[in-house]
């Protein structure tokens, strides 16, 4: 049966096409000069360049981390190109009409028709292609509400004070190896600022696409929610099917002021490599939020892509009564390896966190949950609840759970529950006896397993996530 299941799961990677777009791409290599050139391409002010160079020097002194439960050949950082941009973007198009149609077609093929998105869906999109932001929709409407949503490269010019104040304030330049590298060479990403008391009038989303060969993508996202503001932000990612591994090392920083709320959702579908483990994206991501008094952050992620995933969206619950949530679905198959989880750092009083992690392993893949719950000395009455479920499909895959708990406060309560289950022959047989083909049967069972997480996703994304797992109408009619 497990073969049948494998087949059902080894679907084609639909986003694997390459767009024929003329690009300006740096030769592979990394040194100070490359960083100066990136900075020059973006016409950055001196302070930004200096910040990058300091990060680069931090990075040179650091070692690549090896503690994660993933195995891959050493990355040759000199063999990667650190900048690639469609040539047509050199003229900085001002609206959708001026954007290269081939670029727009790329997003259309990926199911993100930017025009329609602008007209119908009511979702503002920032589309990042390789190293540059192609277009950000709905900007005027957002500006009316006082919301800033623009490429971070633009924010460096337009809002230097905000960028200077907050960039690196949550994830410092020297935080970890990949964050330092990102700080040195980041090329684009989104910048969001929600002013005091404002509820962002629509969902914001960024769509990341790697196209160019041998190119790394190093995006940087910074979201600032001022006192009492609310925003829901979505992030999606795909890449062409290539034989070589490609590096994606992103940093996301969320600043959540008193009484503010950020909901951050990700559907990650980078190319996972073929069934033999050839090719695929190496995804090394640092995501972290700092929560002030009564603030709330909710991370929801659906991770189905990448050859390697190394990612721990975290919350520093600094303010009293602040809340952190982490809802995760990580699906691995073929030879994929995922080491993902979260860190909940409880510093303030009565801080609360919830972690729901659903790992699904199929084929020869390895799926690891790694989570830290830290209860600081001053975290009176803090609480955490963690639930960690693994679902195995077939018997050649692995599921691993590494929960770390540190408690410095006797009044803090930490609860942890974990289960491991299998897609059983009986379940498959029931589904097929009721007329479902094996593919549908698996996706149905997997979908049921993920339900608690999917219900946290915004509607549009729940649909996308569902499709991603070849899932039916479950949820929308349930």
């Amino acid at each position, binding site marked *: 049966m497990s073969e049948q299941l494998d087949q059902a799961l080894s679907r084609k990677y639909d986003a694997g096409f390459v767009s024929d777009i003329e690009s300006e791409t740096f030769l592979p290599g990394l040194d100070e000069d490359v960083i100066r050139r990136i900075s020059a391409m973006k016409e950055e002010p001196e302070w930004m360049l200096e910040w990058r160079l300091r990060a680069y020097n931090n990075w040179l002194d650091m070692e690549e981390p090896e503690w994660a439960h993933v195995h891959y050949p050493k990355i040759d950082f000199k063999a990667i190109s650190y900048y690639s941009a469609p040539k047509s973007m050199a003229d900085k198009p001002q609206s959708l009409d001026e954007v290269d149609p081939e670029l727009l077609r790329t997003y259309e093929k990926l199911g993100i028709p930017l025009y329609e998105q602008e007209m119908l869906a009511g979702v503002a999109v920032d589309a990042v292609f390789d190293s540059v932001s192609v277009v950000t929709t709905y900007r005027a409407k957002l500006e009316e509400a006082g919301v800033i949503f623009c490429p971070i490269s633009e924010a460096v010019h337009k809002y230097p004070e905000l960028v200077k104040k907050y960039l690196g304030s949550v994830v410092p330049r020297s935080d970890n190896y990949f964050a330092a590298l990102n700080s040195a060479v980041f090329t684009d990403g989104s910048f969001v600022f929600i002013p005091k008391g404002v509820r962002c009038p629509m969902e914001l989303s960024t769509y990341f696409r790697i196209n160019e060969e041998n190119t790394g993508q190093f995006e940087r996202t910074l979201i600032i929610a001022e006192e009492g503001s609310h925003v829901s932000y979505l992030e999606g990612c795909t890449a062409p099917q290539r034989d070589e591994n490609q590096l994606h090392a992103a940093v996301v920083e969320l600043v959540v002021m008193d009484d503010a709320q950020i909901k951050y959702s990700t559907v990650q579908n980078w190319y996972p490599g073929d069934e033999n483990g050839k090719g695929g994206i190496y995804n090394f991501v640092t995501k972290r939020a700092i929560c002030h008094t009564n603030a709330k952050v909710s991370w929801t992620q659906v991770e189905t892509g990448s050859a390697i995933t190394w990612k721990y969206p975290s919350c520093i619950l600094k303010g009293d009564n602040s809340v952190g949530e982490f809802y995760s679905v990580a699906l691995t198959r073929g030879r994929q390896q995922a080491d993902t989880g979260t860190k909940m750092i409880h510093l303030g009083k009565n801080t609360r966190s919830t972690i729901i992690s659903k790992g699904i392993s199929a084929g020869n893949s390895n799926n690891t949950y790694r989570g830290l719950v830290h209860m600081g000395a001053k975290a009176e009455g803090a609480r955490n609840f963690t639930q960690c479920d693994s679902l195995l499909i077939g018997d050649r895959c692995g599921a691993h759970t590494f929960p770390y708990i540190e408690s410095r406060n006797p009044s803090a309560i930490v609860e942890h529950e974990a289960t491991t289950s299998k897609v059983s022959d009986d379940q498959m047989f*029931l589904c097929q006896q009721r007329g*479902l083909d094996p593919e549908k049967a698996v996706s*149905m*069972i997997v979908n*049921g397993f993920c339900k608690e997480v999917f219900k946290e996703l915004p509607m549009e994304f729940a649909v996308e996530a569902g499709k991603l797992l070849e899932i039916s*109408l479950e949820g929308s*009619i349930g």
Partner: protein
Amino acid sequence: MLKINNLHASVEQKEILKGLNLDIKPGEVHAIMGPNGAGKSTLGYILSGREGYEVSEGQVEFHGEDLLDMAIEERAHKGLFLAFQYPVEIPGVSNMAFMKESVNAIREQRGETPLTATEFLKKAKEACKQVQLSLDFLKRGVNEGFSGGEKKRNEIMQMILLEPSLCILDESDSGLDIDALQVVANGVNSQRDGKRSFIIITHYQRLLDYIKPDYVHILANGKVVKSGDASLATDVEKEGYAFLGQDNAEEKNA
């Protein structure tokens, strides 16, 4: 509609069915009785195509086609339905979503348009009522935390929704109190329309007081050892399976 000819089948290299014959015409209700371990569930599984059951000899024709050649879901599409002896749970998948997928998968194969959410809901509500399950059961995970009796009624509910041409009920009566038994029986009887056929697998004669079979077959030692009308079931109830002889008495205790 269903013709089983000299069927031999084994599980784990152990021969369970040893030359079974059965002929079922449209609209007929056949009861299959027999001691524990006789191979009744095995027969249901083989007809529905469950993996792990090896057919070594014999043929099965369903609506004039070779049944044994079809995939599990194909058999379902052609109208074969199995109500399970032990229904399995699918956590997190709502009964409603599951049944809607299932109904529409089968409709699609028949060249019918899929039911919309509203159309389906209407049917599902009626089916629920018929088996006396509250509407909550549509929202709950498939069989998730259902009692034994609720699981059995849920199977009948699915049968009603799927409108199969051949229904195989594997001990749908076991573990039911008298009220639940009547609910199940009424569910089945409501589906008897002169065309739909039934194989009712049961251990006891009790269910057959409510669902009147056209034929009763005693399955023992991998074969139909005796066939008759409804009165055969009453005989069995009185005398047990002892009349089957020496080697079958052994099976009974196994």
